[in-house]
């Protein structure tokens, strides 16, 4: 069955550093993958989409890579700020019809 793995432990980094979050998937080949941010008590908010024929996508301080051979996506936040502290969810396309399958998320804490 499809399986998505994200770092289950929280990632603590210092302000100004680059945060790198990992998403690994197995047993399928998604046509695209999305990343979401979720703050406590709120619904997830869409950040970026990357398609299988794209290696890298950028948006301001965010960068996503998609390696279909390794079955992995990396999510980078450069020059991190305390306001970037949140849980980040990886969501590969899950079998058509705009359905997504979500990972459990990685909590990021950016400290001063």
């Amino acid at each position, binding site marked *: 069955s499809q399986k998505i793995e994200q770092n289950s432990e929280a990632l603590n980094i210092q302000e100004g550093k680059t945060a790198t979050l990992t998403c690994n998937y197995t047993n399928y080949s998604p046509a695209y993958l999305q990343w979401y941010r979720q703050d406590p008590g709120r*619904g*997830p908010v*869409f950040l970026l989409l990357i398609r299988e024929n794209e290696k890298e996508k950028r948006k301001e301080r965010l960068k996503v890579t998609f390696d279909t051979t390794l079955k992995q996506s990396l999510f980078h936040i450069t020059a991190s700020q305390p306001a970037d502290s949140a849980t980040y969810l990886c969501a590969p396309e899950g079998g058509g*019809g705009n359905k*997504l399958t979500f*990972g459990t998320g990685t909590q990021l804490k950016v400290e001063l």
Partner: protein
Amino acid sequence: DVKVTQSSRYLVKRTGEKVFLECVQDMDHENMFWYRQDPGLGLRLIYFSYDVKMKEKGDIPEGYSVSREKKERFSLILESASTNQTSMYLCASNLGDRDGSPLHFGNGTRLTVT
């Protein structure tokens, strides 16, 4: 601005009660989804709908049903609530005509079944 509104932020119900969770979107989106989110399990898809009066089962439909009588409204129904349905329920919507269309989520309903 795009908006998905869930009728209740918090809900407490008793075992065996029939529970209705309502979701309304104002974006004219074709697709609507119901997820539940539990610690360590992430978001799991319960049901989704591609159009009015259409519904399809997601990964965990047991114990739930849905209704979509109007395009903007998607209801999740717990026919007989049980304690293992205590969870955060999230409604989402997206466009049906574009592959990879982002999901827009409501802020969730935290349901407790006692």
